[in-house]
């Protein structure tokens, strides 16, 4: 085989690879668009008016997750199933975003921590790598940490909206999350950096609870007793 022939062959390989990446990028782009739409829906819970109809916002978000599932379904068809990690960087960011959104919806609905299995179900993907397009643990954890930061903001805005009990519940939820993360042996990687941010969220929420309790606002207004 001449050098020219060999390089022509190689160009064939390279083009195929570039085409795959181009296809992936396109799907990821629409996925990001849908993620931003869900975010816009959920962001409104920070508005004073938004507190009233959290359930309806969650329902709306749930509907949009259908679209997310379709896009991800589409994404799966764009590359050979066993090359997930070859192209991982392309969708890693958006996958963390939609994980955050799923975790946030679940929290708003039930004030519980979504488990990985449930996120996978909401996104229409797998938990086990072997079974297909899956949610990496690191990406799941990153999504959960983004939510923690959103919750510290929610604690602040709850008070502004006159809801004094929600910060207390957020506080105990975040503390539990913090204990969980303390079980992990994180390396000096992006996840570790994100986790360091969690400490600030914990402190921020503690200060909110402090401000409420020093003014006696942590007591239930109707019944006047301690919670």
């Amino acid at each position, binding site marked *: 085989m001449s050098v020219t022939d060999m390089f022509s062959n190689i160009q064939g390989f390279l083009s195929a690879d570039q085409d795959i990446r181009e296809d992936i990028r396109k799907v990821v782009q629409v996925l990001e*668009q849908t993620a*931003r739409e869900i975010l*816009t829906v959920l962001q*409104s819970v920070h508005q004073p008016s938004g507190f009233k109809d959290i359930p309806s916002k969650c329902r709306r978000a749930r509907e949009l997750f259908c679209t997310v599932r379709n896009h991800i379904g589409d994404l799966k068809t764009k590359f050979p199933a066993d090359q997930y990690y070859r192209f991982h960087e392309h969708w890693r960011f958006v996958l963390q975003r939609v994980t955050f959104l799923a975790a946030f919806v679940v929290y708003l609905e039930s004030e519980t921590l979504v488990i990985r299995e449930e996120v996978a179900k909401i996104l229409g993907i797998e938990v086990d790598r072997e079974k297909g397009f899956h949610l990496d643990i690191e990406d799941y954890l990153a999504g959960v940490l983004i939510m923690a930061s959103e919750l510290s903001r929610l604690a*602040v*805005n709850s008070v502004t909206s*006159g809801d004094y009990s929600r910060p207390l519940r957020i506080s105990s939820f975040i503390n539990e999350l913090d204990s969980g993360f303390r079980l992990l042996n994180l390396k000096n990687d992006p996840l570790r950096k994100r986790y360091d941010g969690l400490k600030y969220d914990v402190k921020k929420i503690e200060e909110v609870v402090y401000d409420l309790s020093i003014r006696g606002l942590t007591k239930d207004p109707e019944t006047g007793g301690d919670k």
Partner: protein
Amino acid sequence: ARMGDPSSDAGSSAVLSAFKTFQLELDSKHDKYERLVKLSRDITIESKRTIFLLHRVTSVPNVEEVLVESEAKLDAVRLKIRLIAEELRGEDLFQFHRAFTPGIQEYVEAVSFQHFIRNRSLITLEEVNSRLVFCREEPPNTKDAAAGQQGAPGGALSFQVSPTDYLLGVADLTGELMRMCISSVGNGDVDTPFQLGQFLREIHDGFAYIGNTGPYEVSKKLHTLRQSLAKVEDACYALRVRGSEIPRHMLADVFCSRAAVLDPDDAVA
């Protein structure tokens, strides 16, 4: 038709004379560019001054006076933008965009700040542009004849702010809104911070919706925007928490005016 042809005796001068025309073309382009940069700088300075002036609304009794004064300043800025529009007549606007974009963004920041103070709403791109249509009849200190020649037949001269410049100006506006919020809290004004919080949240959600689909400069400002929002939300929070302690019967007195807070004799009715 070619230069440097060794067969022609004047070959050397062919290249050099070509470069002399290049020089003219490049110089005139550079000169226009420099003039636009200067105009942009003037616009930036005057817009910044207007913003400084507008911040006084949190500390003076007569808001309307400040608004009138700012309007005069912005009129002066618009005269400068008119000069830009004149420079760009017949040109491809984007060829010189980098020269004037900082000034235009700062103008958007100033005019949208003024608009917010007056109307508590976001000025639209259309509203911004509608103030930048200049009639031929009123050129400032120019000979009517010359201006008339340049003008489009029967049409007015106008300047179009690009959506991106508008976005970038609005992104910077959020920093000023944050400063205004902090000052308002300091001055005992409790309504403005909540209005600002609401408004800033809307702008924030808007930018979040656009996300990284906009130009790079916009994404770059998202972080600062988020910080400004956090500061405003914290301020609103602090106001609410502190406000919760006021005995119901004192509420009116405490918030009736800034003077009430500062004058110890009036503090308790």
